[in-house]
């Protein structure tokens, strides 16, 4: 049962109290006197009222809300969850409403990483091997090949079962900032995708400095941005080659500081002529490129060696000061003097971003990487740059400079003198008044952001409480990708599915406002999404079950479908309001306007429903529920999360 009926009654059985409190204009806050008895202050729980608890425009109110025992009502709890999770269930809304925002965030930040995708994938792989072994004894992990979709199945399993749901939301955001993608040399290797994503999960709540180091040493990044086996400037057989500049450039442009010098509030600094000031030029790039030389596969024997197997992608890169590849490649040479031994890592001082990494012996060359990451990490742009990106991923497309400044300040110093503390940054983002205030300080015109297509899918499966009886899900998520162009680790390029600086045309044009996710929206993906909804919801096909090998027995419990039976009683004409209120809460934290609720309700009333003894016919009821959810999820009120 996805939505206990008693909960519905509890939600809507309190209008008398509400009306009185509404008049007082007090904050929308639900106070739980005890577990059973609810006293509600404010408007948040009232159906068709779009103001929620966080209608507080002043910080005192927020502080009260956070620290003195007042709790968010269900709408504002759902709103937090719309920013901080991949999608929410009714139970989680109740949980936040019980705990309060700050406590919930703290609890989540304290929850250890609960799901390792690589481990799950490896176990899945092993179970496939074991099954095959029964008829083909020669089968081993090394000769049973997987596809990229085994990663998607493993990812989905984690997303459906992990308890650290904030981490899973943050990691998705990180995967859209520190981008690698299967559209690359590792398109057929799910381990490359899983291992990289695990780094993001593991480091969602560590330190930014740790995160960029882990990423720099990850083989998927090294292959994706082509610094795997990157070599010092070399002159061989009359042919001169130079270090690859790819990672040097994108590390600075996309992962840390960006193209222009920033103020703490994220606005660009200007020179005397009012022009933006570049953070680096091509010489900086060429110098930093020299730093990232000498790195190869963790299981390699020499720089320049190719990957051994799937698992080469799961091992930290190894540093080679010296290129002795010739010893292995021309192993038949007997006189060691005839082997060509040169530096793999570029020696010499390297100046970039106004700092100089000192010249050191080539054997000490790996320290260059540490120095370079420190220089980047300590650049004043990182705080505002990364803060803006994370705020855009989680909360709003157009954060105010003051909001960015508050978060960047925490990035620069978490209060205990630590720079780059991601826990503190995430908490600052989610508990900021601008995140919690429903109305963006009265500036509702530009509030919120378009929900990225993939999140809509996760909202659907979470909100409608998709459940497998065995808690095993086998979902390749193909339709989400084919219809909307987005699933994790499938970005078309290092620039992500959409740019943080994308300015949509239409109503926002010329306003200087951003709408990153609008870059994914066009006449094709618009219907792609609605037609995918049609498949998932109307045609009752929410997940794409793939067989693991020929003749495998179909396991229907791994391909669950939505269960709406609890909603059937709510499809009666006299209870449709409750049906809509329920999904308005879960999917849109009460943001569907009265006008749009009326439109949807009118549509539902027009869908025939036969009753016997007052009980709706199952088929009719199911249609009404499905159309209700379809229309809510097609409404601009849902699609713009604000």
């Amino acid at each position: 049962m996805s939505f206990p009926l008693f909960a519905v009654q509890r939600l809507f059985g309190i209008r008398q109290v509400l009306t009185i409190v509404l008049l007082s204009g007090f904050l929308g806050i639900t106070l739980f006197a005890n577990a059973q008895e609810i006293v509600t202050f404010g408007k948040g729980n009232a159906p068709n009222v779009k103001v929620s608890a966080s209608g507080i425009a002043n910080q005192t109110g927020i502080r009260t809300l956070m620290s003195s025992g007042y709790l968010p009502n269900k709408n504002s709890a759902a709103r937090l969850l719309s920013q901080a999770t991949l999608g929410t269930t009714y139970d989680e809304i109740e949980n936040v409403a019980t705990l309060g925002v700050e406590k919930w965030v703290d609890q989540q930040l304290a929850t250890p990483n609960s799901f390792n995708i690589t481990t799950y994938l490896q176990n899945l792989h092993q179970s496939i091997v074991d099954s095959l072994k029964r008829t083909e004894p020669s089968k081993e992990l090394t000769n049973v090949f997987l596809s990229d979709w085994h990663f998607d199945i493993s990812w989905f399993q984690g997303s459906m079962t992990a308890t650290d749901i904030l981490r899973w939301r943050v990691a998705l955001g990180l995967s859209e900032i520190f981008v690698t993608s299967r559209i690359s040399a590792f398109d057929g290797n799910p381990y490359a995708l899983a291992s990289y994503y695990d780094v993001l999960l593991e480091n969602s709540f560590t330190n930014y400095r740790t995160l960029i180091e882990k990423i720099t040493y990850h083989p998927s990044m090294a292959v994706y941005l082509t610094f795997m086996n990157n070599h010092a400037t070399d002159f061989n057989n009359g042919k001169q080659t130079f270090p690859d500049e790819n990672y040097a450039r994108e590390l600075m442009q996309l992962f840390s500081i960006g193209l222009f010098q920033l103020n703490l509030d994220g606005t660009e600094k200007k020179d005397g002529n009012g022009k933006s000031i570049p953070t680096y030029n091509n010489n900086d790039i060429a110098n930093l490129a020299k730093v990232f030389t000498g790195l190869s596969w963790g299981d390699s024997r020499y720089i320049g060696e190719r990957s051994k197997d799937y698992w080469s992608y799961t091992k930290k890169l190894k540093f080679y000061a010296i290129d002795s590849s010739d010893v292995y490649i021309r192993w038949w040479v007997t006189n060691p003097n005839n082997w060509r031994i040169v530096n793999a890592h570029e020696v010499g001082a390297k100046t970039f971003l106004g700092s100089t990494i000192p010249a050191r012996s080539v054997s000490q060359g790996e320290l260059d990487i540490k120095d370079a990451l420190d220089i980047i990490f300590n650049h004043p742009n990182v705080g505002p740059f990364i803060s803006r990106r994370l705020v855009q991923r989680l909360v709003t497309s157009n954060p105010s400079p003051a909001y960015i400044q508050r978060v960047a300040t925490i990035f620069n110093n978490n209060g205990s003198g630590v720079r780059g503390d991601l826990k503190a940054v995430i908490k600052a983002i989610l508990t900021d008044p601008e995140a919690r205030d429903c109305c963006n300080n009265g500036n509702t015109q530009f509030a919120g952001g378009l929900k990225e297509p993939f999140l809509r899918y996760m909202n659907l499966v979470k909100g409608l409480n998709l459940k497998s009886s065995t808690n095993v899900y086998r979902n390749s998520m193909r339709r989400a990708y084919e219809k909307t162009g987005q699933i994790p680790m499938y970005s078309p390029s290092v620039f992500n599915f959409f740019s943080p600086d994308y300015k949509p045309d239409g109503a926002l044009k010329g306003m200087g406002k951003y709408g990153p996710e609008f870059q994914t929206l066009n006449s094709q993906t618009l219907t792609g999404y609605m037609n995918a909804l049609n498949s998932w919801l109307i045609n009752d096909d929410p997940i794409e079950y793939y067989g693991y090998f020929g003749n495998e027995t179909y396991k229907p419990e791994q391909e669950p479908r939505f269960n709406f039976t609890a909603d059937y009683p709510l499809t009666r004409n006299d209870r449709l309001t409750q049906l809509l209120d329920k999904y308005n809460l879960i999917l849109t934290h009460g943001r569907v306007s009265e006008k749009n609720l009326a439109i949807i309700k009118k549509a539902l009333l027009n869908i025939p429903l036969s009753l016997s003894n007052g009980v709706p016919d199952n088929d009719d009821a199911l249609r009404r529920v499905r159309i209700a959810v379809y229309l809510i999820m097609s409404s601009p009120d849902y699609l713009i999360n604000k």
Partner: protein
Amino acid sequence: MNRRDFLKQSGCAAMGTTTLLSTLTSLGAVNGAMSHKNLSSKPSVSEDYKALVCVLLAGGIDSYNVLIPRGTTVGGDNGYNEYASTRSDLAITNASLLALNNPQCTSFRGLPCNYGAFGIHPAMTGMRDLFNAGKLAFMANIGTLVEPIMNATEFENGLKKIPEGIYSHSDQIMQWQTSVPQSRNALGVGGRIADLLNAGNVNNQISMNISLGGKNIFQTGENISEYSISNNVNPNNVGLDILPSWWSDSGLINDIRNSAIDSLVGQTYANLLQETYAGTARSAMASFEIFKEALKRVPSIATQFPNTSLGNDLAAIAKVISVRANLGAKRQIFFVTYGGWDMHDGLANGLNQRLPVVSDALKAFYDATVELGIAENVTAFTISDFARTVTSNGLGSDHAWGGNSMVIGGSVKGGKIYGAFPKMDLNASPQNISFRGNFIPAVSTDELYAEMALWYGVSPTDLCYVLPNLGNFYSYTPGNYPIGFMNFNGTTISTEDKPQSCLVY
């Protein structure tokens, strides 16, 4: 109300704002009536139709391994040896190059072409054939410029405007589409052309600009944005899926659903992100039925397209062009993107895989326009973020600047290399600005676009709306064209000036 505001509003007013999906049936009928004029896909001699097809090779193609000097005369045209020496392990063998017949590369803006003999990458037989048949022209060393920069000294002395973020993918791919390299807020070239000329199309419900590559800057104008289609050009693939037929009353419920969606997206939202979404939905939905009806009339096209993403995209464009009359279109701008060119690594194999895709697809597309009888009416061209360093990083090449582009069509004065191919000996190259081999472009994107815009029907006085920097490179006088690669015989230069004023950035 100025003209732009009027256009903006009439876009909605023409449809009414409350009933989109629900009125589509009647619109379809109107469109059906239109098509009864029995316009065949073959044009009459004087058919006033023109199309531009922008092929974005996203990622920065190594175009110095597309167009390659071939000469080996020491002390004379020694282009290949200079090329091979600089490109090091990236050089393609001379013997494998596909020779271009007498490419007549001369000079541009006082910059010499440097070499006489040229060939192209061995995987591009289709392009070689089109070049030698006079239907394909190369632009040598073309790129983003605000104003001419003649040499490295001018580049370094700080007196010339340099494009924002040269070598940065995101900037350069944008600037190739906007041709306004000093701004990150400019509209697209195709969008601005459509701003001027969209009203000339009989049916304004379908955008002049049709994209196979989704949202893009190139096709975004002040009033115009792209209409995105999939390359599966099939009437059943347009618009919203219908509800399952096994549902009782599925037709009724379908109507109810459509009408509710109309109402949800048909109202005006105070929140401008919501309004942006609703607006996109409105214009898309207004187009579906017309598009669907038109697609039912696509003739069978005998030309075989390769089954590649680019081949399928270009085949889709050919099909859409074949029903231009049903769509009420006299002018169309198409956009297609084919990525994967950021070959820091694996360059040789990468080019061997991808260049045949480009060559085969563009050749088939040209052949299809011949089959449809409109080769002279369609001009396709390639753009990319930038060219790549001519030196090697051991496995590939890195980001550079000016590179080589192709323009293809029946109205192209092909068989010739325009622009000025840079000296491959980096020490002797005044255009080179880096030890890695990065060239200042000789030809600006403005000049490429201006020539095509004049052919497409933009009047000379309106060019400053389409290309705000063009005045730094070119001013129109009759018979004097920016580069000279288009054949203007039979094309009347438009004198119809639109009220848009020049844009300034």
